[in-house]
């Protein structure tokens, strides 16, 4: 900060505040501001532009993996982030592209976890594979895979129970579910999406770290992006964990979903 005159120092502090309040986090904010200082921008606009460029270099977009044969998309994440709703949105998106899908109600734990998914299945007019509250999620997934293979479906979308990433027992449970899939489906046909809540602060990074530790997380679905939060944490997640953000949720309705575009995301930070 010493290289700048007082006026610019104030502006840098302003930038620090903007980024911190966008939940970018102190570590990532300082890395960005350090890079800025080395480039020695001459104006405020140039500074903002540089920051945007740096972010654009870090943030990763991505698409759903496309493969012939049955694909399984596994939705994981902590409690209440928007897994079930986001799954329904992806099902709607795939159906519009002409893909044959089934929903898999593998949240056998939470009250009405299955019923909630059934409502979406009915709205979408697509089948749902389910058992009952308390049954083994692996068993539901096992049934679903057999059904998906015999019916030659394009995708199975697996809903799982919310789980705190700090609960080792629950993390091992979802690994078991993944392994049930892996028994019958090749690894490159399984997509693990971690659902992140845009209103979450620094803990979002911890969540992504843990889910990536246990599962081959290929992408993130950023739900509740229609909130007043900027979800700055995805910058660090993209950079340090190599997890691309594939979709954003923008509301509670089935069509409230967009492909994640880093250009719009970066504009929204400012």
């Amino acid at each position: 900060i010493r290289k700048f005159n007082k006026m610019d120092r104030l502006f840098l502090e302003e930038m620090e505040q903007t980024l911190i309040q966008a939940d970018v986090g102190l570590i990532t904010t300082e890395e960005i501001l350090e890079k800025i200082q080395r480039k020695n921008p001459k104006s405020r606009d140039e500074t903002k532009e540089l920051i945007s460029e740096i972010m654009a270099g870090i943030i990763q977009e991505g698409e759903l993996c496309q493969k012939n044969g049955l694909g399984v998309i596994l939705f994981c994440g902590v409690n209440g982030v928007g897994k079930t709703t986001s799954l329904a949105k992806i099902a709607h998106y795939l159906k519009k592209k002409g893909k044959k899908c089934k929903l898999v109600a593998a949240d056998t734990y939470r009250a009405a976890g299955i019923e909630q998914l059934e409502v979406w299945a009915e709205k979408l007019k697509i089948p749902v594979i389910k058992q009952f509250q308390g049954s083994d999620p692996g068993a539901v997934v096992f049934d679903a895979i057999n059904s998906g293979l015999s019916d030659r479906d394009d995708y199975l979308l697996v809903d799982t129970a919310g789980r705190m990433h700090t609960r080792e027992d629950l993390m091992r449970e979802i690994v078991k579910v993944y392994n049930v899939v892996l028994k019958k489906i090749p690894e490159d046909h399984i997509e693990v999406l971690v659902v992140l809540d845009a209103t979450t602060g620094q803990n979002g990074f911890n969540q992504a770290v843990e889910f990536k530790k246990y599962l081959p997380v290929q992408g993130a679905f950023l739900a509740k992006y229609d909130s007043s939060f900027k979800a700055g944490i995805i910058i660090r997640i993209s950079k340090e964990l190599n997890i691309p953000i594939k979709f954003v949720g923008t509301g509670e309705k089935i069509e409230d979903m967009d492909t994640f575009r880093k250009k719009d995301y970066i504009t929204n930070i400012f």
Partner: protein
Amino acid sequence: ILRDKFEDVFRFIKGTGKIRQENIEQALKKIKMAFLEADVNYRVVRHFIDEVKKKALGESVLKSVSPSQQFIKIVYDEMVKLLGTQTVSLPETFPVNKQTIIMLVGLNGSGKTTTAIKLARKYNKSNPVVIAADPYRPAAVDQLLIMGKKYSIPVFYDKKETFPLRIIQKGIKDSKEKKYNLIIIDTAGRMEMNKELMNEIKEIAQKIKPDYRIFVADALTGQNLINVAKEFQLSTPLNGAILTKFDSDARGGAALSLKYLTKTDIFYIGTGEKLNDLDKFSPSGIAKRILG
């Protein structure tokens, strides 16, 4: 943990024997880092750092024997000051000769429905009923009915009614007839910038006049929580808050920001998905947790 972070800052102070401006700057930077990592609001951090700086450079500290211990004490005392020293909570029981109405509001997925059931269990002796006033979320009513049946908690619902206000009015009438004393209203999640949904809450509060309007937020929420709380506050003055998901490794800085910037008391914290996972908010417990 924070104490270790300060040990090396103050190690060279022991040599020279006094806390100087430079030592303080380093120590304050560490506090800033710890707080921001804990999701404490940026404005609260700035204010806090200024207060601690003033006190730490004060005469009494410069004369102290153990600078790091004194510094930590100043930080800790200042935090407890922000968090409040007393546990303000809901009353132990509610009056038996009338209805007390609690309304839960908050962002989507913050834990309102689960908390409604937990509160009903906690106040079992006050003859509670939960009103399922979320007609929007798929299977929201089923969620309450299933939990209500499992834990023997009465739930009032009307699956045909699409207006929350009407569900609540019918529920209150029904609760008076059945002589329930504590009415807990579970409302739909909503984003604070959704004018229509915020007006809905405002209207419900005006017509129903709940005794307690409680903001349910999760401990994982980021910097903007304060603005969310303020918006809810504008729609209906909040009596207090419940912060959920404290069983995560989120440090809970949101508690500090909420208390300091909106003066909202925190009645309880949610510590899990089970019925009994609702604990009283302890300012000193949270202070230690935020400091890491």
